[in-house]
Protein backbone atom coordinates (compact mmCIF):
# COMPACT_ATOMS: atom_id res chain seq x y z
CA UNK A 1 0.00 0.00 0.00
CA UNK A 2 2.85 2.34 0.91
CA UNK A 3 4.56 1.60 -2.37
CA UNK A 4 1.38 2.41 -4.24
CA UNK A 5 1.13 5.78 -2.54
CA UNK A 6 4.68 6.68 -3.47
CA UNK A 7 3.99 5.65 -7.07
CA UNK A 8 0.91 7.86 -7.30
CA UNK A 9 2.87 10.78 -5.84
CA UNK A 10 5.56 10.29 -8.47
CA UNK A 11 2.89 10.11 -11.19
CA UNK A 12 1.32 13.33 -9.89
CA UNK A 13 4.64 15.14 -10.03
CA UNK A 14 5.48 13.77 -13.50
CA UNK A 15 2.09 14.79 -14.85
CA UNK A 16 2.31 18.26 -13.32
CA UNK A 17 5.71 18.67 -14.95
CA UNK A 18 4.30 17.47 -18.27
CA UNK A 19 1.37 19.87 -17.93
CA UNK A 20 3.84 22.73 -17.59
CA UNK A 21 5.84 21.38 -20.53
CA UNK A 22 2.58 21.31 -22.52
CA UNK A 23 1.82 24.96 -21.94
CA UNK A 24 5.47 25.96 -22.31
CA UNK A 25 5.04 26.71 -26.06
CA UNK A 26 2.21 29.09 -25.20
CA UNK A 27 4.27 30.76 -22.48
CA UNK A 28 7.22 31.09 -24.85
CA UNK A 29 4.91 32.55 -27.50
CA UNK A 30 3.42 35.16 -25.19
CA UNK A 31 6.74 36.21 -23.64
CA UNK A 32 8.46 36.29 -27.03
CA UNK A 33 5.82 38.58 -28.48
CA UNK A 34 6.90 41.13 -25.86
CA UNK A 35 10.66 40.67 -26.29
CA UNK A 36 12.91 42.91 -28.33
CA UNK A 37 13.53 41.24 -31.71
CA UNK A 38 17.13 40.28 -30.97
CA UNK A 39 16.17 38.45 -27.76
CA UNK A 40 13.44 36.22 -29.20
CA UNK A 41 15.63 33.26 -30.10
CA UNK A 42 18.33 33.79 -27.51
CA UNK A 43 16.99 34.44 -24.02
CA UNK A 44 14.00 32.93 -22.32
CA UNK A 45 13.67 35.59 -19.66
CA UNK A 46 13.97 38.95 -21.37
CA UNK A 47 15.95 41.85 -19.96
CA UNK A 48 13.25 44.27 -20.96
CA UNK A 49 9.75 44.01 -22.37
CA UNK A 50 8.53 45.95 -25.35
CA UNK A 51 5.26 46.60 -27.14
CA UNK A 52 6.97 47.26 -30.48
CA UNK A 53 5.64 44.12 -32.18
CA UNK A 54 2.06 44.90 -31.23
CA UNK A 55 2.56 48.50 -32.26
CA UNK A 56 3.86 47.24 -35.58
CA UNK A 57 0.79 45.05 -36.06
CA UNK A 58 -1.71 47.69 -35.08
CA UNK A 59 -0.13 50.73 -36.66
CA UNK A 60 2.47 49.83 -39.27
CA UNK A 61 1.15 46.68 -40.90
CA UNK A 62 -1.28 48.69 -43.03
CA UNK A 63 1.70 49.97 -44.97
CA UNK A 64 2.60 46.39 -45.77
CA UNK A 65 -0.94 45.88 -47.11
CA UNK A 66 -1.68 43.67 -44.15
CA UNK A 67 -4.44 45.35 -42.13
CA UNK A 68 -4.34 43.22 -39.01
CA UNK A 69 -6.97 45.12 -37.05
CA UNK A 70 -9.38 44.83 -39.92
CA UNK A 71 -8.59 41.15 -40.31
CA UNK A 72 -9.32 40.61 -36.63
CA UNK A 73 -12.66 42.39 -36.99
CA UNK A 74 -13.38 40.40 -40.17
CA UNK A 75 -12.76 37.16 -38.30
CA UNK A 76 -14.93 38.33 -35.44
CA UNK A 77 -17.75 39.31 -37.80
CA UNK A 78 -17.59 36.11 -39.87
CA UNK A 79 -17.25 33.83 -36.85
CA UNK A 80 -20.01 35.39 -34.78
CA UNK A 81 -22.42 35.50 -37.72
CA UNK A 82 -21.79 31.85 -38.55
CA UNK A 83 -22.00 30.76 -34.91
CA UNK A 84 -25.23 32.67 -34.29
CA UNK A 85 -26.79 31.36 -37.48
CA UNK A 86 -25.74 27.76 -36.85
CA UNK A 87 -27.22 27.92 -33.35
CA UNK A 88 -30.55 29.34 -34.54
CA UNK A 89 -30.98 27.14 -37.60
CA UNK A 90 -29.77 24.00 -35.83
CA UNK A 91 -32.20 24.56 -32.94
CA UNK A 92 -35.17 25.14 -35.26
CA UNK A 93 -34.41 22.31 -37.68
CA UNK A 94 -33.41 20.04 -34.81
CA UNK A 95 -36.79 20.73 -33.20
CA UNK A 96 -38.68 20.03 -36.41
CA UNK A 97 -36.96 16.72 -37.16
CA UNK A 98 -37.12 15.45 -33.59
CA UNK A 99 -40.45 16.68 -32.25
CA UNK A 100 -42.86 17.04 -35.16
CA UNK A 101 -44.31 13.76 -36.33
CA UNK A 102 -44.20 13.70 -40.09
CA UNK A 103 -42.44 11.54 -42.62
CA UNK A 104 -40.30 14.17 -44.26
CA UNK A 105 -38.72 14.97 -40.89
CA UNK A 106 -37.43 11.41 -40.57
CA UNK A 107 -36.03 11.55 -44.09
CA UNK A 108 -34.26 14.82 -43.36
CA UNK A 109 -32.78 13.37 -40.17
CA UNK A 110 -31.39 10.37 -42.05
CA UNK A 111 -30.09 12.64 -44.78
CA UNK A 112 -28.19 14.69 -42.16
CA UNK A 113 -26.40 11.58 -40.94
CA UNK A 114 -25.61 10.65 -44.52
CA UNK A 115 -24.20 14.14 -45.13
CA UNK A 116 -21.88 13.81 -42.14
CA UNK A 117 -20.23 10.77 -43.75
CA UNK A 118 -18.58 12.95 -46.39
CA UNK A 119 -15.35 14.61 -45.35
CA UNK A 120 -15.41 18.35 -46.00
CA UNK A 121 -12.43 18.37 -48.34
CA UNK A 122 -14.34 16.32 -50.94
CA UNK A 123 -16.67 19.25 -51.50
CA UNK A 124 -14.14 22.01 -51.44
CA UNK A 125 -13.37 22.46 -55.12
CA UNK A 126 -16.99 21.93 -56.27
CA UNK A 127 -17.99 24.46 -53.60
CA UNK A 128 -15.35 26.84 -54.93
CA UNK A 129 -16.94 26.52 -58.38
CA UNK A 130 -20.37 27.29 -56.92
CA UNK A 131 -19.05 30.41 -55.19
CA UNK A 132 -17.31 31.45 -58.38
CA UNK A 133 -20.47 30.93 -60.44
CA UNK A 134 -22.40 33.03 -57.94
CA UNK A 135 -19.81 35.78 -58.37
CA UNK A 136 -18.98 35.64 -54.67
CA UNK A 137 -15.20 35.23 -54.80
CA UNK A 138 -13.49 37.73 -52.49
CA UNK A 139 -16.71 38.54 -50.64
CA UNK A 140 -17.85 37.93 -47.08
CA UNK A 141 -20.74 35.80 -48.39
CA UNK A 142 -18.25 33.22 -49.61
CA UNK A 143 -17.06 32.71 -46.03
CA UNK A 144 -20.46 32.92 -44.35
CA UNK A 145 -23.29 31.59 -46.50
CA UNK A 146 -21.97 28.03 -47.09
CA UNK A 147 -21.74 27.53 -43.31
CA UNK A 148 -25.05 29.08 -42.24
CA UNK A 149 -26.30 25.74 -41.04
CA UNK A 150 -24.51 22.60 -39.95
CA UNK A 151 -25.66 18.98 -40.20
CA UNK A 152 -23.70 18.17 -37.08
CA UNK A 153 -25.38 21.02 -35.19
CA UNK A 154 -28.86 19.91 -36.25
CA UNK A 155 -28.00 16.35 -35.31
CA UNK A 156 -26.77 17.38 -31.85
CA UNK A 157 -29.89 19.47 -31.14
CA UNK A 158 -32.21 16.75 -32.48
CA UNK A 159 -30.57 14.18 -30.18
CA UNK A 160 -30.89 16.38 -27.14
CA UNK A 161 -34.47 17.52 -27.90
CA UNK A 162 -35.49 13.87 -28.23
CA UNK A 163 -34.95 13.46 -24.48
CA UNK A 164 -37.32 16.32 -23.61
CA UNK A 165 -40.89 15.06 -22.97
CA UNK A 166 -43.55 16.17 -25.41
CA UNK A 167 -45.77 17.32 -22.50
CA UNK A 168 -43.77 20.54 -22.24
CA UNK A 169 -44.61 21.39 -25.83
CA UNK A 170 -48.28 20.41 -25.53
CA UNK A 171 -48.68 22.49 -22.39
CA UNK A 172 -47.17 25.52 -24.10
CA UNK A 173 -49.37 24.98 -27.17
CA UNK A 174 -52.52 24.94 -25.07
CA UNK A 175 -51.37 28.25 -23.61
CA UNK A 176 -51.21 29.52 -27.18
CA UNK A 177 -47.43 29.65 -27.64
CA UNK A 178 -46.21 29.68 -31.21
CA UNK A 179 -43.51 27.37 -32.51
CA UNK A 180 -40.60 29.81 -32.37
CA UNK A 181 -41.47 30.64 -28.78
CA UNK A 182 -41.43 26.92 -27.99
CA UNK A 183 -38.04 26.40 -29.63
CA UNK A 184 -36.28 29.38 -28.07
CA UNK A 185 -38.04 29.76 -24.74
CA UNK A 186 -38.73 26.14 -23.79
CA UNK A 187 -36.50 23.77 -25.73
CA UNK A 188 -33.31 25.80 -25.92
CA UNK A 189 -33.02 26.55 -22.17
CA UNK A 190 -33.47 22.83 -21.52
CA UNK A 191 -30.67 22.02 -23.96
CA UNK A 192 -28.21 24.57 -22.69
CA UNK A 193 -25.21 22.27 -22.70
CA UNK A 194 -25.88 21.17 -26.28
CA UNK A 195 -26.18 24.81 -27.30
CA UNK A 196 -22.87 25.59 -25.62
CA UNK A 197 -21.12 22.65 -27.26
CA UNK A 198 -22.47 23.44 -30.73
CA UNK A 199 -21.72 27.14 -30.27
CA UNK A 200 -18.19 26.59 -28.99
CA UNK A 201 -17.12 24.04 -31.61
CA UNK A 202 -18.65 26.14 -34.39
CA UNK A 203 -16.88 29.24 -33.13
CA UNK A 204 -13.51 27.48 -32.81
CA UNK A 205 -13.89 25.71 -36.16
CA UNK A 206 -14.86 28.87 -38.03
CA UNK A 207 -12.20 31.05 -36.41
CA UNK A 208 -9.56 28.43 -37.14
CA UNK A 209 -10.77 27.71 -40.68
CA UNK A 210 -7.86 28.12 -43.05
CA UNK A 211 -8.05 26.17 -46.31
CA UNK A 212 -11.47 27.46 -47.39
CA UNK A 213 -10.81 31.19 -46.88
CA UNK A 214 -7.38 30.67 -48.45
CA UNK A 215 -9.18 29.46 -51.58
CA UNK A 216 -11.91 32.06 -51.90
CA UNK A 217 -10.39 35.22 -50.40
CA UNK A 218 -7.54 37.10 -52.04
CA UNK A 219 -8.63 40.57 -50.93
CA UNK A 220 -6.45 41.67 -47.99
CA UNK A 221 -9.19 43.93 -46.67
CA UNK A 222 -11.72 41.13 -46.26
CA UNK A 223 -9.40 38.35 -45.14
CA UNK A 224 -9.95 36.56 -41.87
CA UNK A 225 -7.00 36.77 -39.49
CA UNK A 226 -5.84 33.17 -40.09
CA UNK A 227 -5.22 33.78 -43.80
CA UNK A 228 -3.82 37.27 -43.35
CA UNK A 229 -1.36 36.03 -40.75
CA UNK A 230 -0.28 33.19 -43.04
CA UNK A 231 0.24 35.57 -45.96
CA UNK A 232 2.13 38.03 -43.77
CA UNK A 233 4.42 35.22 -42.62
CA UNK A 234 4.78 34.08 -46.22
CA UNK A 235 6.28 37.40 -47.26
CA UNK A 236 7.79 38.78 -44.08
CA UNK A 237 8.83 35.67 -42.15
CA UNK A 238 11.93 37.49 -40.92
CA UNK A 239 9.68 39.84 -38.88
CA UNK A 240 9.53 37.17 -36.19
CA UNK A 241 8.22 39.49 -33.48
CA UNK A 242 5.13 40.70 -35.34
CA UNK A 243 4.45 37.16 -36.60
CA UNK A 244 4.42 35.88 -33.02
CA UNK A 245 2.32 38.80 -31.81
CA UNK A 246 -0.14 38.00 -34.61
CA UNK A 247 -0.19 34.37 -33.50
CA UNK A 248 -1.04 35.52 -29.96
CA UNK A 249 -3.94 37.63 -31.24
CA UNK A 250 -5.17 34.76 -33.42
CA UNK A 251 -5.10 32.37 -30.44
CA UNK A 252 -6.72 34.56 -27.77
CA UNK A 253 -10.40 34.32 -28.80
CA UNK A 254 -10.24 30.53 -29.14
CA UNK A 255 -8.60 30.06 -25.77
CA UNK A 256 -11.00 32.53 -24.14
CA UNK A 257 -14.11 30.78 -25.38
CA UNK A 258 -12.59 27.47 -24.35
CA UNK A 259 -11.85 28.70 -20.83
CA UNK A 260 -15.36 30.13 -20.44
CA UNK A 261 -17.10 27.00 -21.70
CA UNK A 262 -14.57 24.38 -20.60
CA UNK A 263 -17.10 22.27 -18.67
CA UNK A 264 -19.11 21.80 -21.85
CA UNK A 265 -15.96 20.88 -23.74
CA UNK A 266 -15.53 17.91 -21.42
CA UNK A 267 -19.21 17.00 -21.80
CA UNK A 268 -18.81 17.28 -25.56
CA UNK A 269 -15.99 14.76 -25.49
CA UNK A 270 -17.97 12.20 -23.53
CA UNK A 271 -21.05 12.86 -25.68
CA UNK A 272 -19.21 12.22 -28.90
CA UNK A 273 -18.43 8.76 -27.57
CA UNK A 274 -22.02 7.65 -27.41
Amino acid at each position, binding site marked *: MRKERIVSWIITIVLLAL*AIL*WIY*PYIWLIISSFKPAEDI*YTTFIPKRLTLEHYKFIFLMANKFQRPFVRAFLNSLFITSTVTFSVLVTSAIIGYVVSKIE*FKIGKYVFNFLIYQMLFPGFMFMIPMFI*LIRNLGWLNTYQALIVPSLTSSWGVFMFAQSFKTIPKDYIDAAKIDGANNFWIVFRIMLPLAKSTASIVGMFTFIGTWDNFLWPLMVMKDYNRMPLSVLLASFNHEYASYVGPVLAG*AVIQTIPMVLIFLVLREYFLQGISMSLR
Partner: protein
Amino acid sequence: MSNCSKLGKKERAFGYSVIFPYLAYTAVFWGYPFIWMVVLAFTKWNYFSKPQFVLLSNFLRIFTDSLVIRIALNTLNFLAYLIPMVLFASLFFAMALTKVKFGKTFIMLSFLVANVSSGVAYSLLFSNLFSINGPINRLMDSLFGFTIPWFSNPQLAVFSICLIITWKFIGYYGLIIYAGLLSIPQSIYEAAELDGADKKTIFWKITLPLLNPSLITVTVLAITLTFGIFTEPYMITGGGPMQRTTTFLIYMYDTAFKRIDPSYATTVAIVTALVSYALVMLIRKFFEKEVVFV
Protein backbone atom coordinates in the same frame (compact mmCIF):
# COMPACT_ATOMS: atom_id res chain seq x y z
CA MET B 1 -59.48 14.93 -30.14
CA SER B 2 -60.33 17.22 -33.02
CA ASN B 3 -58.47 19.93 -31.17
CA CYS B 4 -55.42 17.69 -31.01
CA SER B 5 -55.37 16.87 -34.72
CA LYS B 6 -55.81 20.55 -35.47
CA LEU B 7 -52.71 21.21 -33.40
CA GLY B 8 -50.92 18.43 -35.26
CA LYS B 9 -51.87 19.98 -38.57
CA LYS B 10 -50.61 23.38 -37.52
CA GLU B 11 -47.47 21.75 -36.23
CA ARG B 12 -46.84 20.01 -39.54
CA ALA B 13 -47.43 23.24 -41.41
CA PHE B 14 -44.68 24.80 -39.30
CA GLY B 15 -42.52 21.78 -40.01
CA TYR B 16 -42.93 22.17 -43.76
CA SER B 17 -42.25 25.89 -43.56
CA VAL B 18 -38.90 25.07 -41.95
CA ILE B 19 -38.01 22.01 -44.00
CA PHE B 20 -38.61 23.53 -47.43
CA PRO B 21 -36.26 26.49 -47.04
CA TYR B 22 -33.74 24.09 -45.53
CA LEU B 23 -34.07 21.76 -48.52
CA ALA B 24 -33.74 24.68 -50.93
CA TYR B 25 -30.57 25.84 -49.14
CA THR B 26 -29.20 22.29 -49.12
CA ALA B 27 -29.98 21.86 -52.81
CA VAL B 28 -27.84 24.90 -53.61
CA PHE B 29 -25.00 24.47 -51.10
CA TRP B 30 -24.82 20.70 -51.02
CA GLY B 31 -26.65 19.28 -54.03
CA TYR B 32 -25.13 21.59 -56.62
CA PRO B 33 -21.53 21.02 -55.44
CA PHE B 34 -22.28 17.30 -55.23
CA ILE B 35 -23.31 17.24 -58.88
CA TRP B 36 -20.22 19.25 -59.81
CA MET B 37 -18.09 16.79 -57.87
CA VAL B 38 -19.40 13.89 -59.97
CA VAL B 39 -19.12 15.91 -63.19
CA LEU B 40 -15.55 16.97 -62.43
CA ALA B 41 -14.45 13.43 -61.66
CA PHE B 42 -15.36 12.26 -65.16
CA THR B 43 -14.37 15.30 -67.18
CA LYS B 44 -11.42 17.46 -68.05
CA TRP B 45 -11.87 21.15 -67.38
CA ASN B 46 -9.81 24.31 -66.85
CA TYR B 47 -12.49 26.60 -65.29
CA PHE B 48 -13.26 28.29 -68.60
CA SER B 49 -13.91 25.97 -71.54
CA LYS B 50 -16.70 23.43 -71.72
CA PRO B 51 -16.02 20.34 -69.55
CA GLN B 52 -14.96 17.41 -71.72
CA PHE B 53 -16.12 13.94 -70.84
CA VAL B 54 -13.08 11.70 -70.38
CA LEU B 55 -14.56 8.53 -68.85
CA LEU B 56 -12.25 7.15 -66.14
CA SER B 57 -9.01 8.74 -67.25
CA ASN B 58 -8.81 11.00 -64.15
CA PHE B 59 -8.95 7.90 -61.97
CA LEU B 60 -6.48 6.01 -64.14
CA ARG B 61 -4.12 8.97 -63.99
CA ILE B 62 -3.97 8.67 -60.20
CA PHE B 63 -2.43 5.22 -60.42
CA THR B 64 0.31 6.35 -62.78
CA ASP B 65 0.97 9.71 -61.12
CA SER B 66 4.37 9.35 -59.42
CA LEU B 67 3.57 12.27 -57.11
CA VAL B 68 0.41 10.52 -55.88
CA ILE B 69 2.52 7.48 -55.08
CA ARG B 70 4.97 9.74 -53.21
CA ILE B 71 2.05 11.27 -51.28
CA ALA B 72 0.58 7.88 -50.47
CA LEU B 73 3.96 6.86 -49.02
CA ASN B 74 4.14 10.17 -47.13
CA THR B 75 0.72 9.50 -45.65
CA LEU B 76 1.84 6.03 -44.56
CA ASN B 77 4.91 7.69 -43.07
CA PHE B 78 2.71 10.11 -41.11
CA LEU B 79 0.47 7.27 -39.96
CA ALA B 80 3.46 5.18 -38.89
CA TYR B 81 4.55 7.91 -36.47
CA LEU B 82 1.26 9.44 -35.49
CA ILE B 83 -0.86 6.40 -34.63
CA PRO B 84 1.61 4.78 -32.17
CA MET B 85 2.60 8.16 -30.71
CA VAL B 86 -0.97 9.22 -30.17
CA LEU B 87 -2.11 5.85 -28.81
CA PHE B 88 0.77 5.45 -26.35
CA ALA B 89 0.76 9.03 -25.19
CA SER B 90 -2.99 9.28 -24.70
CA LEU B 91 -3.15 5.90 -22.98
CA PHE B 92 -0.33 6.93 -20.65
CA PHE B 93 -1.98 10.29 -20.01
CA ALA B 94 -5.35 8.71 -19.25
CA MET B 95 -3.94 6.03 -16.93
CA ALA B 96 -1.75 8.51 -15.11
CA LEU B 97 -4.71 10.83 -14.70
CA THR B 98 -6.58 8.17 -12.69
CA LYS B 99 -3.68 8.09 -10.21
CA VAL B 100 -3.19 11.81 -9.79
CA LYS B 101 -3.41 13.11 -6.21
CA PHE B 102 -4.06 16.79 -6.84
CA GLY B 103 -4.03 19.38 -9.59
CA LYS B 104 -6.17 17.27 -11.93
CA THR B 105 -8.06 20.29 -13.24
CA PHE B 106 -4.84 22.14 -13.98
CA ILE B 107 -3.40 19.12 -15.80
CA MET B 108 -6.52 18.56 -17.90
CA LEU B 109 -6.79 22.25 -18.77
CA SER B 110 -3.19 22.67 -19.84
CA PHE B 111 -3.42 19.61 -22.10
CA LEU B 112 -6.76 20.72 -23.52
CA VAL B 113 -5.72 24.30 -24.10
CA ALA B 114 -3.19 22.90 -26.59
CA ASN B 115 -6.12 21.40 -28.45
CA VAL B 116 -7.85 24.74 -28.99
CA SER B 117 -4.77 26.30 -30.56
CA SER B 118 -5.32 27.76 -34.00
CA GLY B 119 -3.78 25.77 -36.85
CA VAL B 120 -2.01 28.77 -38.35
CA ALA B 121 -0.87 30.21 -35.04
CA TYR B 122 0.56 26.99 -33.64
CA SER B 123 2.34 26.22 -36.91
CA LEU B 124 4.02 29.63 -36.71
CA LEU B 125 4.80 29.11 -33.05
CA PHE B 126 6.46 25.74 -33.58
CA SER B 127 8.26 26.65 -36.78
CA ASN B 128 9.98 29.41 -34.80
CA LEU B 129 10.49 27.39 -31.63
CA PHE B 130 12.08 24.53 -33.59
CA SER B 131 13.80 26.63 -36.25
CA ILE B 132 17.43 25.89 -37.01
CA ASN B 133 18.75 28.71 -34.80
CA GLY B 134 15.66 28.81 -32.59
CA PRO B 135 15.50 28.45 -28.81
CA ILE B 136 15.25 24.63 -28.72
CA ASN B 137 18.27 24.22 -30.96
CA ARG B 138 20.23 26.79 -28.98
CA LEU B 139 19.51 24.83 -25.84
CA MET B 140 20.52 21.58 -27.56
CA ASP B 141 23.71 23.22 -28.79
CA SER B 142 24.74 24.53 -25.37
CA LEU B 143 23.87 21.26 -23.59
CA PHE B 144 25.02 18.63 -26.09
CA GLY B 145 26.94 20.55 -28.71
CA PHE B 146 24.72 19.70 -31.70
CA THR B 147 21.53 20.94 -33.30
CA ILE B 148 18.62 19.05 -34.83
CA PRO B 149 17.29 20.00 -38.29
CA TRP B 150 13.69 19.53 -37.15
CA PHE B 151 11.99 20.68 -40.32
CA SER B 152 14.76 20.51 -42.92
CA ASN B 153 15.65 16.83 -42.81
CA PRO B 154 13.03 14.86 -44.81
CA GLN B 155 12.39 12.11 -42.27
CA LEU B 156 12.67 14.43 -39.26
CA ALA B 157 10.23 16.90 -40.83
CA VAL B 158 7.53 14.22 -40.94
CA PHE B 159 8.35 13.25 -37.38
CA SER B 160 8.32 16.87 -36.15
CA ILE B 161 4.94 17.54 -37.70
CA CYS B 162 3.62 14.39 -36.02
CA LEU B 163 5.14 15.64 -32.78
CA ILE B 164 3.30 18.94 -32.86
CA ILE B 165 0.04 17.25 -33.88
CA THR B 166 0.51 14.94 -30.92
CA TRP B 167 1.08 18.00 -28.73
CA LYS B 168 -2.21 19.39 -29.97
CA PHE B 169 -4.38 16.29 -29.70
CA ILE B 170 -3.20 14.36 -26.65
CA GLY B 171 -5.49 16.24 -24.27
CA TYR B 172 -8.52 15.50 -26.39
CA TYR B 173 -7.68 11.87 -27.17
CA GLY B 174 -6.43 11.23 -23.65
CA LEU B 175 -9.75 12.33 -22.19
CA ILE B 176 -11.62 10.03 -24.56
CA ILE B 177 -9.57 7.13 -23.17
CA TYR B 178 -9.95 8.49 -19.64
CA ALA B 179 -13.73 8.40 -20.06
CA GLY B 180 -13.33 4.81 -21.25
CA LEU B 181 -11.26 3.91 -18.18
CA LEU B 182 -13.85 5.39 -15.84
CA SER B 183 -16.59 3.35 -17.48
CA ILE B 184 -14.91 0.05 -16.54
CA PRO B 185 -16.68 -1.21 -13.40
CA GLN B 186 -14.41 -1.33 -10.34
CA SER B 187 -15.86 -4.74 -9.38
CA ILE B 188 -14.04 -6.38 -12.28
CA TYR B 189 -10.70 -5.23 -10.89
CA GLU B 190 -11.62 -6.34 -7.38
CA ALA B 191 -12.60 -9.78 -8.63
CA ALA B 192 -9.33 -10.10 -10.53
CA GLU B 193 -7.32 -9.10 -7.47
CA LEU B 194 -9.16 -11.66 -5.36
CA ASP B 195 -8.21 -14.28 -7.92
CA GLY B 196 -4.59 -13.26 -7.39
CA ALA B 197 -3.95 -11.58 -10.74
CA ASP B 198 -0.90 -9.32 -10.77
CA LYS B 199 -0.71 -5.78 -12.18
CA LYS B 200 0.61 -6.88 -15.53
CA THR B 201 -2.07 -9.48 -16.08
CA ILE B 202 -4.78 -7.01 -15.05
CA PHE B 203 -3.52 -4.48 -17.57
CA TRP B 204 -3.19 -6.89 -20.49
CA LYS B 205 -6.22 -9.08 -19.79
CA ILE B 206 -8.71 -6.57 -18.39
CA THR B 207 -7.90 -2.90 -18.91
CA LEU B 208 -6.69 -3.08 -22.49
CA PRO B 209 -9.45 -5.33 -23.88
CA LEU B 210 -12.16 -3.32 -22.12
CA LEU B 211 -10.68 -0.09 -23.45
CA ASN B 212 -11.04 -1.36 -27.01
CA PRO B 213 -13.92 1.00 -27.99
CA SER B 214 -12.05 4.12 -26.84
CA LEU B 215 -8.78 2.99 -28.42
CA ILE B 216 -10.56 2.33 -31.71
CA THR B 217 -12.25 5.74 -31.51
CA VAL B 218 -8.88 7.44 -31.03
CA THR B 219 -7.29 5.43 -33.86
CA VAL B 220 -10.13 6.28 -36.23
CA LEU B 221 -10.00 9.97 -35.31
CA ALA B 222 -6.22 10.01 -35.83
CA ILE B 223 -6.50 8.31 -39.23
CA THR B 224 -9.16 10.78 -40.38
CA LEU B 225 -6.96 13.59 -39.10
CA THR B 226 -3.89 12.30 -40.97
CA PHE B 227 -5.68 12.25 -44.31
CA GLY B 228 -6.76 15.84 -43.69
CA ILE B 229 -3.36 17.34 -42.78
CA PHE B 230 -2.90 20.63 -44.59
CA THR B 231 -2.14 23.67 -42.46
CA GLU B 232 1.03 22.39 -40.73
CA PRO B 233 3.03 21.42 -43.84
CA TYR B 234 1.61 24.34 -45.82
CA MET B 235 2.78 26.79 -43.16
CA ILE B 236 5.99 25.15 -41.94
CA THR B 237 7.61 23.13 -44.71
CA GLY B 238 5.63 24.05 -47.82
CA GLY B 239 5.43 20.32 -48.60
CA GLY B 240 9.19 19.85 -48.59
CA PRO B 241 11.94 18.85 -48.01
CA MET B 242 12.01 16.63 -51.11
CA GLN B 243 8.19 16.63 -51.12
CA ARG B 244 8.21 14.37 -48.09
CA THR B 245 5.59 16.38 -46.20
CA THR B 246 3.32 16.94 -49.20
CA THR B 247 -0.11 15.65 -48.25
CA PHE B 248 -3.19 14.84 -50.30
CA LEU B 249 -4.80 18.16 -49.43
CA ILE B 250 -1.72 20.15 -50.39
CA TYR B 251 -1.69 18.29 -53.70
CA MET B 252 -5.41 18.93 -54.17
CA TYR B 253 -4.93 22.65 -53.51
CA ASP B 254 -1.92 22.94 -55.83
CA THR B 255 -3.57 20.94 -58.59
CA ALA B 256 -6.73 23.02 -58.48
CA PHE B 257 -5.17 26.46 -58.23
CA LYS B 258 -1.56 26.31 -59.41
CA ARG B 259 -1.93 23.71 -62.14
CA ILE B 260 -5.50 24.88 -62.95
CA ASP B 261 -6.84 21.36 -63.05
CA PRO B 262 -9.94 21.25 -60.83
CA SER B 263 -11.18 17.98 -62.32
CA TYR B 264 -8.08 16.03 -61.39
CA ALA B 265 -7.93 17.78 -57.99
CA THR B 266 -11.50 16.67 -57.23
CA THR B 267 -10.69 13.13 -58.32
CA VAL B 268 -7.73 13.13 -55.93
CA ALA B 269 -10.05 14.34 -53.14
CA ILE B 270 -12.59 11.61 -53.87
CA VAL B 271 -9.97 8.87 -53.93
CA THR B 272 -8.39 10.21 -50.73
CA ALA B 273 -11.76 10.10 -48.99
CA LEU B 274 -12.39 6.57 -50.23
CA VAL B 275 -8.96 5.33 -49.13
CA SER B 276 -9.30 6.84 -45.65
CA TYR B 277 -12.80 5.40 -45.39
CA ALA B 278 -11.53 1.97 -46.43
CA LEU B 279 -8.69 2.13 -43.91
CA VAL B 280 -11.12 3.01 -41.13
CA MET B 281 -13.37 0.12 -42.14
CA LEU B 282 -10.40 -2.28 -42.12
CA ILE B 283 -9.34 -1.14 -38.64
CA ARG B 284 -12.88 -1.56 -37.40
CA LYS B 285 -13.23 -5.00 -38.93
CA PHE B 286 -9.97 -6.39 -37.59
CA PHE B 287 -9.54 -4.66 -34.26
CA GLU B 288 -12.96 -3.61 -33.00
CA LYS B 289 -14.40 -5.90 -30.35
CA GLU B 290 -17.81 -5.67 -28.80
CA VAL B 291 -17.48 -4.84 -25.10
CA VAL B 292 -20.38 -5.59 -22.79
CA PHE B 293 -20.29 -5.02 -19.06
CA VAL B 294 -22.48 -7.52 -17.26
